[in-house]
């Protein structure tokens, strides 16, 4: 390839990478190269976090889902990648908001130490329950939580 073209590419690439790495509001620790992923990330930060709603529960309502997060986080600790992703999608936007973040982390550390014992076997099949829950939007979150807690206490 022609050196001039490559040089042009190199300079453009470095400038673009610098711009997207330090662009305010894009999540500074992250790097974005692909124009479409940059755009998606922008949409994610600006729109999705506001619109996020699971079975009718909005961002603010999700603060009640701490127990669910606890369970998901626990299963997500190296078992089912699908759940890890689900968990991240559900709660990452919350993590971006400091007001929620502090409440969450404090609560989680306390409840994790108190509640999570060692028996991972109890949690088997939870991924399927959660997955079927997403198939049935008519089921309320409270029903799901009850089912999860029931299984947890078995």
């Amino acid at each position: 390839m022609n050196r001039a073209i490559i040089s042009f590419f190199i300079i453009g690439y470095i400038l673009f990478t610098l711009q997207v790495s330090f662009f305010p509001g894009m999540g500074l620790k992250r790097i974005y190269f692909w124009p479409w992923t940059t755009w998606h990330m922008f949409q994610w930060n600006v729109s999705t976090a506001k619109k996020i709603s699971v079975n009718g529960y909005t961002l603010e309502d999700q603060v009640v889902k701490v127990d669910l997060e606890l369970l998901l986080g626990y299963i997500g600790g190296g078992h089912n990648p699908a759940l890890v992703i689900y968990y991240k999608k559900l709660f990452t936007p919350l993590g971006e908001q400091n007001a929620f973040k502090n409440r969450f982390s404090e609560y989680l550390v306390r409840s994790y130490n108190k509640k999570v014992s060692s028996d991972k076997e109890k949690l088997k099949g939870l991924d399927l329950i959660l997955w079927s829950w997403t198939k049935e939007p008519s089921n309320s979150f409270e029903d799901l939580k009850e089912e999860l807690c029931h299984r947890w206490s078995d």
Partner: protein
Amino acid sequence: MFSKWIKSWNQYWFVAKPLHGLVLFRIGVALILFAYYLKRLPYAEMIFSVESFDHRLGFIESLSIPLFSPAVAMFLVLFCLVTSLLFALGLWTRLSNIFLVVLVAYLGCVEGMYTIGGFNLLLISSFLLIFSDCGKYGSLDYWLWLKKGNKKKKKEIEKRKVGSYWVQRLIVVQLAIVYLACAFYKSQYAYGWYNGKFLRETLLDPYWGQLPLGVWMSQYHWVMAFAGTSVLLWEFFMSLFVLLPKFRNFAFISGVFFHAFILFTFNLTSLFSFTMFVHLILVLSPYDVARYCESFNSFLRKNGIGVKK
């Protein structure tokens, strides 16, 4: 003056150097992607298809990414695994590289992995490798070329061991920007890092932390303060060290320690640490890497397992 500047520019980017580092990098990147998608293969339907969690919860629609049936999703993941293996082995290297990048970009978008720095770095680097000579040597393509009766062409063989350096250089520059951006991000909350508060919180977080080593370390305030301060300063200086030839070895060794620390104390997927490990290979001098590889090869030959000359 201008011509002198052009000369230095050309010397910095376009001098041909040994490809051994880039070959190791290619194999590392391909194997990480292979392991990553192998782990997701049983869950292809739940992650990548129209039946996925994300689709049901309405995340995908907002990002306007096309989704396919579970069978097609499974095929795409399998195809990604095959191309990553071909890329690792260096068979039809450039073609397998292009297919791999397209598939990983698509699957990464569906999975929402563009929010993860380590994954992006992997994707970007594999994209840049398309323009490199990483399949010219240390690959099945090279072996096939030898089989075609080129074994005795010593000059040609030596030529295939070196290649264009600009891709490797650009990946290292990218790495420097990543470290700088990380340090810049942390410096906005510098106090929390200096007193170790953030590190302690992360190590004890039920999702990100709670690994035995991290929990044990978090008991000691001075360890947290020291580690938090070191991380911030190290990342700042690392953005320079990876670019300065004098500090290359230090950057490599400290980088390996730093990312191994993350691997054992944070409950992140190992994707991030392994991605950084393979990237650090490119920080080393290509001549040094070539020397290490040649000595390793001759050690293997002495023991009867290496490639015979």
